Protein backbone atom coordinates (compact mmCIF):
# COMPACT_ATOMS: atom_id res chain seq x y z
CA UNK A 1 0.00 0.00 0.00
CA UNK A 2 1.55 3.21 -1.19
CA UNK A 3 1.60 6.25 1.07
CA UNK A 4 -0.92 8.97 0.24
CA UNK A 5 0.88 12.02 -1.14
CA UNK A 6 -2.32 14.08 -1.16
CA UNK A 7 -5.14 13.63 1.28
CA UNK A 8 -8.34 15.65 1.33
CA UNK A 9 -10.61 14.93 4.26
CA UNK A 10 -14.19 16.21 4.55
CA UNK A 11 -13.38 19.63 3.13
CA UNK A 12 -16.01 22.35 2.93
CA UNK A 13 -15.64 25.64 1.06
CA UNK A 14 -18.22 28.30 0.28
CA UNK A 15 -18.00 31.54 -1.66
CA UNK A 16 -20.51 33.71 0.17
CA UNK A 17 -23.74 31.68 0.25
CA UNK A 18 -22.58 29.39 -2.54
CA UNK A 19 -21.29 26.15 -1.00
CA UNK A 20 -18.89 24.74 -3.59
CA UNK A 21 -17.17 21.94 -1.66
CA UNK A 22 -19.47 19.95 0.63
CA UNK A 23 -17.59 17.19 2.37
CA UNK A 24 -14.97 16.55 -0.30
CA UNK A 25 -12.84 13.51 0.54
CA UNK A 26 -10.13 12.18 -1.72
CA UNK A 27 -6.64 10.78 -1.63
CA UNK A 28 -3.89 10.38 -4.19
CA UNK A 29 -1.06 7.91 -3.65
CA UNK A 30 2.49 8.62 -4.81
CA UNK A 31 2.88 7.97 -8.57
CA UNK A 32 -0.87 7.67 -8.95
CA UNK A 33 -2.85 9.49 -11.67
CA UNK A 34 -6.30 10.52 -10.51
CA UNK A 35 -8.72 12.21 -12.89
CA UNK A 36 -11.63 14.32 -11.65
CA UNK A 37 -14.67 14.45 -13.90
CA UNK A 38 -17.94 16.24 -13.32
CA UNK A 39 -20.06 19.14 -14.52
CA UNK A 40 -18.81 22.72 -14.51
CA UNK A 41 -19.35 24.20 -11.07
CA UNK A 42 -19.21 20.83 -9.32
CA UNK A 43 -16.12 21.95 -7.37
CA UNK A 44 -13.19 20.38 -9.28
CA UNK A 45 -11.26 23.63 -9.80
CA UNK A 46 -11.98 24.87 -6.31
CA UNK A 47 -10.60 21.64 -4.88
CA UNK A 48 -7.37 22.01 -6.86
CA UNK A 49 -7.02 25.66 -5.80
CA UNK A 50 -7.54 24.69 -2.15
CA UNK A 51 -4.85 22.01 -2.35
CA UNK A 52 -2.44 24.63 -3.69
CA UNK A 53 -3.42 27.09 -0.98
CA UNK A 54 -4.84 29.60 -3.46
CA UNK A 55 -8.15 29.36 -1.59
CA UNK A 56 -8.62 28.75 2.13
CA UNK A 57 -11.04 26.04 3.26
CA UNK A 58 -13.93 26.52 5.69
CA UNK A 59 -13.69 23.07 7.28
CA UNK A 60 -11.77 19.84 6.88
CA UNK A 61 -8.13 18.95 6.40
CA UNK A 62 -5.87 18.85 3.36
CA UNK A 63 -2.49 17.15 3.76
CA UNK A 64 0.22 17.44 1.12
CA UNK A 65 3.19 15.15 1.70
CA UNK A 66 2.64 15.32 5.46
CA UNK A 67 2.15 19.12 5.50
CA UNK A 68 -1.20 20.42 6.71
CA UNK A 69 -2.32 22.97 4.10
CA UNK A 70 -5.37 23.88 6.15
CA UNK A 71 -3.53 24.74 9.38
CA UNK A 72 -3.69 28.36 10.51
CA UNK A 73 0.07 28.66 10.25
CA UNK A 74 0.32 26.65 7.01
CA UNK A 75 3.55 27.19 5.11
CA UNK A 76 2.10 27.71 1.65
CA UNK A 77 5.47 28.33 0.08
CA UNK A 78 6.60 24.87 1.17
CA UNK A 79 3.37 23.34 -0.12
CA UNK A 80 3.60 25.10 -3.47
CA UNK A 81 7.16 23.94 -3.92
CA UNK A 82 5.95 20.35 -3.55
CA UNK A 83 2.89 20.70 -5.78
CA UNK A 84 2.97 22.29 -9.23
CA UNK A 85 -0.19 23.70 -10.74
CA UNK A 86 -1.20 24.36 -14.35
CA UNK A 87 -4.28 26.41 -15.21
CA UNK A 88 -6.87 26.40 -17.94
CA UNK A 89 -5.77 29.84 -19.14
CA UNK A 90 -1.99 29.09 -19.30
CA UNK A 91 -1.14 32.26 -17.31
CA UNK A 92 2.36 32.62 -18.70
CA UNK A 93 3.96 35.94 -17.79
CA UNK A 94 3.65 37.94 -21.02
CA UNK A 95 6.55 40.30 -20.26
CA UNK A 96 9.10 37.48 -19.99
CA UNK A 97 10.53 35.10 -22.56
CA UNK A 98 9.85 31.37 -22.27
CA UNK A 99 13.19 31.00 -20.54
CA UNK A 100 12.38 33.88 -18.19
CA UNK A 101 9.05 32.30 -17.30
CA UNK A 102 10.67 28.99 -16.46
CA UNK A 103 13.70 30.26 -14.55
CA UNK A 104 11.95 32.91 -12.42
CA UNK A 105 10.74 30.70 -9.58
CA UNK A 106 13.81 28.42 -9.36
CA UNK A 107 16.06 31.51 -9.13
CA UNK A 108 13.94 33.59 -6.75
CA UNK A 109 12.39 30.87 -4.60
CA UNK A 110 14.96 28.07 -4.59
CA UNK A 111 17.98 30.35 -4.99
CA UNK A 112 19.36 28.45 -7.97
CA UNK A 113 22.01 30.41 -9.89
CA UNK A 114 20.93 31.99 -13.17
CA UNK A 115 23.24 29.75 -15.21
CA UNK A 116 22.07 26.57 -13.56
CA UNK A 117 18.39 27.55 -13.79
CA UNK A 118 18.80 28.29 -17.49
CA UNK A 119 20.56 24.99 -18.11
CA UNK A 120 17.82 23.07 -16.34
CA UNK A 121 15.15 25.01 -18.21
CA UNK A 122 16.78 24.25 -21.56
CA UNK A 123 17.01 20.55 -20.65
CA UNK A 124 13.31 20.48 -19.80
CA UNK A 125 12.38 22.36 -22.98
CA UNK A 126 14.38 19.88 -25.02
CA UNK A 127 12.64 17.00 -23.29
CA UNK A 128 9.27 18.41 -24.39
CA UNK A 129 10.34 19.44 -27.88
CA UNK A 130 10.26 23.17 -27.14
CA UNK A 131 13.98 24.03 -27.24
CA UNK A 132 13.52 26.26 -30.30
CA UNK A 133 11.06 28.46 -28.37
CA UNK A 134 13.36 29.25 -25.43
CA UNK A 135 13.83 32.92 -26.33
CA UNK A 136 10.35 33.61 -27.72
CA UNK A 137 7.72 35.60 -25.88
CA UNK A 138 4.45 33.86 -24.96
CA UNK A 139 2.37 35.79 -27.51
CA UNK A 140 4.47 34.25 -30.28
CA UNK A 141 3.44 30.73 -29.27
CA UNK A 142 0.33 28.73 -30.13
CA UNK A 143 -2.04 27.86 -27.30
CA UNK A 144 -0.71 24.32 -27.19
CA UNK A 145 2.89 25.53 -26.97
CA UNK A 146 1.96 28.05 -24.26
CA UNK A 147 0.32 25.34 -22.20
CA UNK A 148 3.32 23.03 -22.61
CA UNK A 149 5.61 25.86 -21.47
CA UNK A 150 3.31 26.38 -18.46
CA UNK A 151 3.76 22.70 -17.60
CA UNK A 152 7.54 22.98 -17.98
CA UNK A 153 7.48 26.10 -15.78
CA UNK A 154 5.76 24.12 -13.01
CA UNK A 155 8.11 21.15 -13.48
CA UNK A 156 11.16 23.40 -13.12
CA UNK A 157 10.34 23.62 -9.40
CA UNK A 158 10.78 19.83 -9.24
CA UNK A 159 7.40 19.20 -7.61
CA UNK A 160 6.37 15.82 -6.26
CA UNK A 161 2.85 16.14 -7.61
CA UNK A 162 1.13 18.12 -10.38
CA UNK A 163 -2.36 19.60 -10.37
CA UNK A 164 -3.93 20.15 -13.81
CA UNK A 165 -7.04 22.31 -13.90
CA UNK A 166 -8.81 21.67 -17.23
CA UNK A 167 -5.58 22.44 -19.02
CA UNK A 168 -6.95 21.63 -22.49
CA UNK A 169 -10.30 23.41 -22.20
CA UNK A 170 -9.04 26.68 -23.70
CA UNK A 171 -7.29 25.01 -26.62
CA UNK A 172 -8.36 24.56 -30.22
CA UNK A 173 -9.27 20.90 -30.78
CA UNK A 174 -6.21 20.17 -32.94
CA UNK A 175 -3.88 21.40 -30.15
CA UNK A 176 -5.33 19.28 -27.34
CA UNK A 177 -3.34 16.19 -28.29
CA UNK A 178 0.12 17.71 -27.85
CA UNK A 179 -0.69 18.82 -24.29
CA UNK A 180 -2.21 15.49 -23.34
CA UNK A 181 0.88 13.75 -24.72
CA UNK A 182 3.02 15.75 -22.30
CA UNK A 183 0.85 14.66 -19.37
CA UNK A 184 0.99 11.06 -20.56
CA UNK A 185 4.80 11.35 -20.61
CA UNK A 186 4.75 12.68 -17.04
CA UNK A 187 2.74 9.67 -15.91
CA UNK A 188 5.29 7.37 -17.50
CA UNK A 189 8.08 9.12 -15.63
CA UNK A 190 6.25 8.41 -12.36
CA UNK A 191 4.77 11.83 -11.55
CA UNK A 192 1.84 11.96 -9.13
CA UNK A 193 -1.02 13.69 -10.93
CA UNK A 194 -4.42 15.04 -9.94
CA UNK A 195 -6.26 16.54 -12.88
CA UNK A 196 -9.70 17.89 -13.70
CA UNK A 197 -10.65 17.34 -17.31
CA UNK A 198 -13.49 16.90 -19.77
CA UNK A 199 -11.37 14.62 -22.00
CA UNK A 200 -13.08 11.30 -21.26
CA UNK A 201 -10.99 9.35 -23.75
CA UNK A 202 -7.81 10.55 -22.04
CA UNK A 203 -9.22 9.68 -18.60
CA UNK A 204 -9.95 6.17 -19.83
CA UNK A 205 -6.41 5.75 -21.23
CA UNK A 206 -4.25 7.34 -18.60
CA UNK A 207 -6.03 7.46 -15.25
CA UNK A 208 -5.36 4.93 -12.52
CA UNK A 209 -8.54 6.11 -10.90
CA UNK A 210 -11.45 8.30 -11.99
CA UNK A 211 -13.47 10.32 -9.48
CA UNK A 212 -16.88 11.67 -10.41
CA UNK A 213 -17.40 14.95 -8.55
CA UNK A 214 -20.95 16.09 -7.99
CA UNK A 215 -22.25 18.96 -5.84
CA UNK A 216 -18.96 19.41 -4.01
CA UNK A 217 -18.10 15.84 -3.11
CA UNK A 218 -16.78 12.68 -4.73
CA UNK A 219 -19.84 10.65 -5.59
CA UNK A 220 -18.12 7.71 -7.19
CA UNK A 221 -14.53 6.61 -7.54
CA UNK A 222 -12.83 3.66 -9.14
CA UNK A 223 -10.87 2.35 -12.11
CA UNK A 224 -11.72 4.21 -15.34
CA UNK A 225 -13.29 1.19 -16.98
CA UNK A 226 -15.73 0.85 -14.12
CA UNK A 227 -16.60 4.52 -13.50
CA UNK A 228 -16.81 5.44 -17.18
CA UNK A 229 -18.08 2.11 -18.47
CA UNK A 230 -20.32 0.78 -15.75
CA UNK A 231 -21.09 3.53 -13.22
CA UNK A 232 -22.98 2.63 -10.07
CA UNK A 233 -24.55 6.01 -9.49
CA UNK A 234 -27.46 7.39 -11.51
CA UNK A 235 -25.90 10.90 -11.41
CA UNK A 236 -22.73 9.54 -12.98
CA UNK A 237 -24.69 7.84 -15.74
CA UNK A 238 -26.61 11.08 -16.42
CA UNK A 239 -23.41 13.07 -16.61
CA UNK A 240 -21.67 10.60 -18.91
CA UNK A 241 -24.73 10.40 -21.15
CA UNK A 242 -24.62 14.19 -21.53
CA UNK A 243 -20.86 14.39 -22.11
CA UNK A 244 -20.48 11.42 -24.38
CA UNK A 245 -23.72 12.25 -26.22
Amino acid sequence: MAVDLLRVDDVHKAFGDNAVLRGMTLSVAAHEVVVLIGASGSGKSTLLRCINGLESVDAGVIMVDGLDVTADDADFDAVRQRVGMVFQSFNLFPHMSVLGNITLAPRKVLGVSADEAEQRARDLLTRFGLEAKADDYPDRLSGGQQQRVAIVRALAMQPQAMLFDEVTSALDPELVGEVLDVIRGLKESGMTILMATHEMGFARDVADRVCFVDAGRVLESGPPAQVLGDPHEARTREFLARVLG
Partner: protein
Amino acid sequence: MSTNTGASIVEPEVPYVDPERRSRRQRRSRRNALVATLSTVVFFGVVVIAVATSPGWPVVQDAFFNGDYFALAWPEVLVALLINIKIFVVAEFFILILGLLLALTRLSKSPALLPLRIVGTLYTDIFRGTPTLLVVLLLGFGVPALNLSGLPTDPLVWGTIALILSYTAYVAEVFRSGIASIHPSQRAAARSLGLSNVQTNRYVVLPQAIRRVIPPLLNDFVSLQKDTALVSVLGPIEALRAAQIIVYGKFNYTPYIVGALLFIALTIPMARFTDWLTARQERQRSSGSR
Protein backbone atom coordinates in the same frame (compact mmCIF):
# COMPACT_ATOMS: atom_id res chain seq x y z
CA MET B 1 9.62 31.53 -49.66
CA SER B 2 10.43 33.33 -52.90
CA THR B 3 9.89 30.37 -55.19
CA ASN B 4 7.57 27.43 -55.20
CA THR B 5 9.12 24.00 -55.28
CA GLY B 6 6.11 22.47 -57.06
CA ALA B 7 4.92 22.85 -60.63
CA SER B 8 3.17 26.15 -60.03
CA ILE B 9 5.13 29.32 -60.80
CA VAL B 10 2.52 31.66 -59.31
CA GLU B 11 3.96 33.89 -56.57
CA PRO B 12 1.79 33.03 -53.59
CA GLU B 13 2.28 36.41 -51.89
CA VAL B 14 0.42 38.51 -54.50
CA PRO B 15 -3.29 38.18 -53.87
CA TYR B 16 -5.48 38.22 -56.93
CA VAL B 17 -7.61 41.33 -57.48
CA ASP B 18 -10.05 41.74 -60.33
CA PRO B 19 -8.30 44.25 -62.72
CA GLU B 20 -11.49 46.18 -63.35
CA ARG B 21 -12.15 46.49 -59.63
CA ARG B 22 -8.54 47.56 -59.10
CA SER B 23 -8.77 50.39 -61.63
CA ARG B 24 -12.10 51.51 -60.16
CA ARG B 25 -10.49 51.64 -56.72
CA GLN B 26 -7.54 53.63 -58.08
CA ARG B 27 -9.85 56.14 -59.78
CA ARG B 28 -11.79 56.56 -56.58
CA SER B 29 -8.69 57.11 -54.42
CA ARG B 30 -7.31 59.68 -56.93
CA ARG B 31 -10.60 61.55 -56.84
CA ASN B 32 -10.62 61.49 -53.01
CA ALA B 33 -7.07 62.89 -52.86
CA LEU B 34 -7.99 65.70 -55.25
CA VAL B 35 -11.10 66.65 -53.27
CA ALA B 36 -9.17 66.61 -49.99
CA THR B 37 -6.42 68.85 -51.40
CA LEU B 38 -8.84 71.33 -52.93
CA SER B 39 -11.03 71.65 -49.84
CA THR B 40 -7.98 72.14 -47.60
CA VAL B 41 -6.49 74.86 -49.83
CA VAL B 42 -9.81 76.68 -50.12
CA PHE B 43 -10.54 76.47 -46.39
CA PHE B 44 -7.20 77.79 -45.19
CA GLY B 45 -7.07 80.36 -48.03
CA VAL B 46 -10.39 81.80 -46.94
CA VAL B 47 -9.35 81.87 -43.25
CA VAL B 48 -6.03 83.63 -43.96
CA ILE B 49 -7.62 86.19 -46.27
CA ALA B 50 -10.49 86.82 -43.85
CA VAL B 51 -8.12 87.40 -40.93
CA ALA B 52 -5.57 89.49 -42.84
CA THR B 53 -8.20 91.74 -44.46
CA SER B 54 -10.29 92.25 -41.33
CA PRO B 55 -10.15 95.86 -40.07
CA GLY B 56 -8.74 94.91 -36.63
CA TRP B 57 -5.89 92.71 -37.88
CA PRO B 58 -3.03 95.30 -37.90
CA VAL B 59 -3.76 96.12 -34.26
CA VAL B 60 -3.84 92.45 -33.30
CA GLN B 61 -0.68 91.76 -35.22
CA ASP B 62 1.15 94.58 -33.48
CA ALA B 63 -0.03 93.52 -29.99
CA PHE B 64 0.62 89.78 -30.29
CA PHE B 65 2.99 89.17 -33.17
CA ASN B 66 5.39 92.12 -33.11
CA GLY B 67 8.73 91.10 -34.64
CA ASP B 68 10.85 93.52 -32.59
CA TYR B 69 9.44 92.43 -29.26
CA PHE B 70 9.67 88.85 -30.36
CA ALA B 71 13.43 89.23 -30.92
CA LEU B 72 13.74 91.07 -27.61
CA ALA B 73 11.82 88.50 -25.52
CA TRP B 74 13.08 85.34 -27.16
CA PRO B 75 16.50 84.95 -25.46
CA GLU B 76 15.32 86.02 -22.02
CA VAL B 77 12.32 83.72 -21.94
CA LEU B 78 14.38 80.85 -23.29
CA VAL B 79 16.96 81.22 -20.49
CA ALA B 80 14.18 81.44 -17.91
CA LEU B 81 12.66 78.26 -19.31
CA LEU B 82 15.64 76.38 -17.88
CA ILE B 83 14.11 76.94 -14.44
CA ASN B 84 10.87 75.31 -15.61
CA ILE B 85 12.82 72.34 -16.90
CA LYS B 86 14.66 72.08 -13.60
CA ILE B 87 11.40 72.16 -11.62
CA PHE B 88 9.92 69.57 -13.95
CA VAL B 89 12.81 67.11 -13.70
CA VAL B 90 13.10 67.32 -9.91
CA ALA B 91 9.34 67.12 -9.38
CA GLU B 92 8.88 64.23 -11.79
CA PHE B 93 11.55 62.18 -10.04
CA PHE B 94 9.80 62.45 -6.67
CA ILE B 95 6.31 62.12 -8.15
CA LEU B 96 7.11 58.76 -9.74
CA ILE B 97 8.57 57.29 -6.56
CA LEU B 98 5.94 58.69 -4.18
CA GLY B 99 3.10 57.88 -6.58
CA LEU B 100 4.13 54.23 -6.83
CA LEU B 101 4.56 53.93 -3.06
CA LEU B 102 1.15 55.51 -2.48
CA ALA B 103 -0.49 53.18 -5.00
CA LEU B 104 1.09 50.09 -3.41
CA THR B 105 0.07 51.25 0.06
CA ARG B 106 -3.53 51.80 -0.97
CA LEU B 107 -3.68 48.37 -2.65
CA SER B 108 -2.05 46.45 0.20
CA LYS B 109 -4.27 44.28 2.36
CA SER B 110 -2.01 44.09 5.40
CA PRO B 111 -3.93 45.04 8.57
CA ALA B 112 -0.87 46.82 9.99
CA LEU B 113 -0.94 49.26 7.07
CA LEU B 114 -4.56 50.33 7.63
CA PRO B 115 -3.61 53.76 9.06
CA LEU B 116 -1.37 54.37 6.04
CA ARG B 117 -4.20 53.33 3.73
CA ILE B 118 -6.52 55.84 5.44
CA VAL B 119 -3.89 58.57 5.13
CA GLY B 120 -3.35 57.62 1.48
CA THR B 121 -7.04 57.84 0.66
CA LEU B 122 -7.42 61.18 2.43
CA TYR B 123 -4.30 62.51 0.74
CA THR B 124 -5.57 61.55 -2.71
CA ASP B 125 -9.00 63.07 -2.07
CA ILE B 126 -7.52 66.31 -0.76
CA PHE B 127 -4.85 66.94 -3.35
CA ARG B 128 -6.88 65.85 -6.36
CA GLY B 129 -9.69 68.12 -5.25
CA THR B 130 -7.62 71.22 -4.49
CA PRO B 131 -6.61 73.56 -7.35
CA THR B 132 -2.87 73.22 -7.94
CA LEU B 133 -2.48 77.01 -7.95
CA LEU B 134 -4.00 77.15 -4.45
CA VAL B 135 -1.47 74.60 -3.15
CA VAL B 136 1.37 76.59 -4.76
CA LEU B 137 0.20 79.81 -3.09
CA LEU B 138 -0.45 78.14 0.25
CA LEU B 139 2.97 76.52 0.49
CA GLY B 140 4.97 79.14 -1.39
CA PHE B 141 3.80 82.13 0.66
CA GLY B 142 2.37 80.39 3.71
CA VAL B 143 5.26 78.24 4.89
CA PRO B 144 8.08 80.84 4.59
CA ALA B 145 5.80 83.27 6.46
CA LEU B 146 5.87 80.94 9.47
CA ASN B 147 9.54 81.81 9.99
CA LEU B 148 10.22 78.32 11.26
CA SER B 149 13.91 77.62 11.53
CA GLY B 150 15.31 74.73 9.54
CA LEU B 151 12.73 75.00 6.77
CA PRO B 152 13.82 76.28 3.35
CA THR B 153 12.55 79.74 2.47
CA ASP B 154 13.21 79.61 -1.26
CA PRO B 155 9.83 79.96 -3.03
CA LEU B 156 11.18 77.80 -5.84
CA VAL B 157 11.56 74.90 -3.41
CA TRP B 158 8.05 75.31 -2.03
CA GLY B 159 6.54 75.72 -5.49
CA THR B 160 8.19 72.48 -6.54
CA ILE B 161 6.97 70.70 -3.40
CA ALA B 162 3.44 71.95 -4.11
CA LEU B 163 3.59 70.49 -7.62
CA ILE B 164 4.92 67.20 -6.24
CA LEU B 165 2.08 66.97 -3.70
CA SER B 166 -0.55 67.75 -6.28
CA TYR B 167 0.69 65.48 -9.06
CA THR B 168 1.57 62.53 -6.80
CA ALA B 169 -2.15 62.18 -6.10
CA TYR B 170 -2.87 61.84 -9.84
CA VAL B 171 0.07 59.61 -10.65
CA ALA B 172 -0.72 57.27 -7.74
CA GLU B 173 -4.19 56.76 -9.17
CA VAL B 174 -2.70 55.96 -12.57
CA PHE B 175 -0.38 53.38 -11.01
CA ARG B 176 -3.23 51.97 -8.94
CA SER B 177 -5.48 51.44 -11.96
CA GLY B 178 -2.57 49.83 -13.81
CA ILE B 179 -1.87 47.38 -11.01
CA ALA B 180 -5.58 46.59 -10.65
CA SER B 181 -5.79 45.89 -14.39
CA ILE B 182 -3.43 42.92 -14.17
CA HIS B 183 -5.61 39.81 -14.18
CA PRO B 184 -5.72 37.92 -10.84
CA SER B 185 -4.73 34.73 -12.70
CA GLN B 186 -1.22 36.19 -13.14
CA ARG B 187 -0.94 36.53 -9.37
CA ALA B 188 -2.33 33.00 -8.88
CA ALA B 189 0.20 31.58 -11.34
CA ALA B 190 3.07 33.35 -9.59
CA ARG B 191 1.93 32.27 -6.13
CA SER B 192 1.41 28.67 -7.31
CA LEU B 193 5.09 28.63 -8.30
CA GLY B 194 6.02 29.46 -4.73
CA LEU B 195 6.80 33.17 -5.18
CA SER B 196 6.02 35.27 -2.11
CA ASN B 197 3.58 38.16 -2.25
CA VAL B 198 6.42 40.69 -2.49
CA GLN B 199 8.21 38.68 -5.20
CA THR B 200 4.93 38.37 -7.11
CA ASN B 201 4.55 42.14 -7.11
CA ARG B 202 8.17 42.80 -7.92
CA TYR B 203 8.65 40.35 -10.79
CA VAL B 204 5.20 39.66 -12.21
CA VAL B 205 2.61 42.35 -11.44
CA LEU B 206 4.53 45.65 -11.40
CA PRO B 207 6.52 45.17 -14.62
CA GLN B 208 3.30 44.52 -16.51
CA ALA B 209 1.36 47.26 -14.74
CA ILE B 210 4.00 49.94 -15.32
CA ARG B 211 4.27 49.07 -19.00
CA ARG B 212 0.53 49.44 -19.28
CA VAL B 213 0.37 52.88 -17.63
CA ILE B 214 3.24 54.56 -19.46
CA PRO B 215 0.94 56.39 -21.94
CA PRO B 216 -1.32 57.91 -19.25
CA LEU B 217 1.77 58.71 -17.14
CA LEU B 218 3.36 60.60 -20.02
CA ASN B 219 0.10 62.48 -20.40
CA ASP B 220 0.44 63.65 -16.81
CA PHE B 221 4.07 64.62 -17.49
CA VAL B 222 2.97 66.87 -20.35
CA SER B 223 0.49 68.50 -18.00
CA LEU B 224 3.17 68.95 -15.34
CA GLN B 225 5.53 70.60 -17.81
CA LYS B 226 2.96 73.33 -18.38
CA ASP B 227 2.04 73.64 -14.73
CA THR B 228 5.63 74.50 -13.78
CA ALA B 229 4.54 78.01 -14.89
CA LEU B 230 2.28 78.18 -11.81
CA VAL B 231 5.42 78.74 -9.72
CA SER B 232 5.65 82.17 -11.40
CA VAL B 233 3.09 83.52 -8.89
CA LEU B 234 5.71 83.07 -6.16
CA GLY B 235 8.21 85.34 -7.89
CA PRO B 236 10.98 83.19 -9.38
CA ILE B 237 11.78 84.36 -12.87
CA GLU B 238 10.86 81.29 -14.85
CA ALA B 239 9.61 81.48 -18.44
CA LEU B 240 6.12 82.87 -17.78
CA ARG B 241 7.43 85.42 -15.27
CA ALA B 242 10.19 86.50 -17.64
CA ALA B 243 7.65 87.03 -20.41
CA GLN B 244 5.32 88.88 -18.02
CA ILE B 245 8.04 91.33 -16.99
CA ILE B 246 8.62 92.36 -20.58
CA VAL B 247 4.85 92.54 -21.24
CA TYR B 248 4.37 94.90 -18.30
CA GLY B 249 7.35 97.02 -19.34
CA LYS B 250 6.48 97.38 -23.01
CA PHE B 251 2.66 97.13 -23.02
CA ASN B 252 2.92 94.48 -25.71
CA TYR B 253 1.79 90.87 -25.52
CA THR B 254 4.26 89.32 -27.97
CA PRO B 255 6.45 87.91 -25.13
CA TYR B 256 3.48 85.78 -23.98
CA ILE B 257 3.35 84.31 -27.48
CA VAL B 258 7.08 83.62 -27.21
CA GLY B 259 6.46 81.82 -23.90
CA ALA B 260 3.57 79.86 -25.38
CA LEU B 261 5.71 78.75 -28.33
CA LEU B 262 8.51 77.61 -26.04
CA PHE B 263 6.16 75.63 -23.79
CA ILE B 264 4.61 74.04 -26.86
CA ALA B 265 8.06 73.17 -28.18
CA LEU B 266 8.78 71.54 -24.83
CA THR B 267 5.61 69.46 -24.71
CA ILE B 268 5.28 68.40 -28.35
CA PRO B 269 8.11 65.85 -28.28
CA MET B 270 6.57 64.28 -25.16
CA ALA B 271 3.11 64.25 -26.75
CA ARG B 272 4.38 62.64 -29.98
CA PHE B 273 6.39 60.13 -27.95
CA THR B 274 3.20 59.24 -26.04
CA ASP B 275 1.29 58.78 -29.31
CA TRP B 276 4.05 56.60 -30.68
CA LEU B 277 4.21 54.47 -27.55
CA THR B 278 0.43 54.03 -27.43
CA ALA B 279 0.33 53.04 -31.10
CA ARG B 280 3.16 50.58 -30.58
CA GLN B 281 1.42 48.93 -27.63
CA GLU B 282 -1.76 48.72 -29.69
CA ARG B 283 0.16 47.01 -32.50
CA GLN B 284 1.81 44.59 -30.09
CA ARG B 285 -1.50 43.69 -28.54
CA SER B 286 -3.15 43.01 -31.89
CA SER B 287 -0.18 41.12 -33.32
CA GLY B 288 -0.20 38.66 -30.41
CA SER B 289 -1.64 35.28 -31.26
CA ARG B 290 -4.30 35.58 -28.56
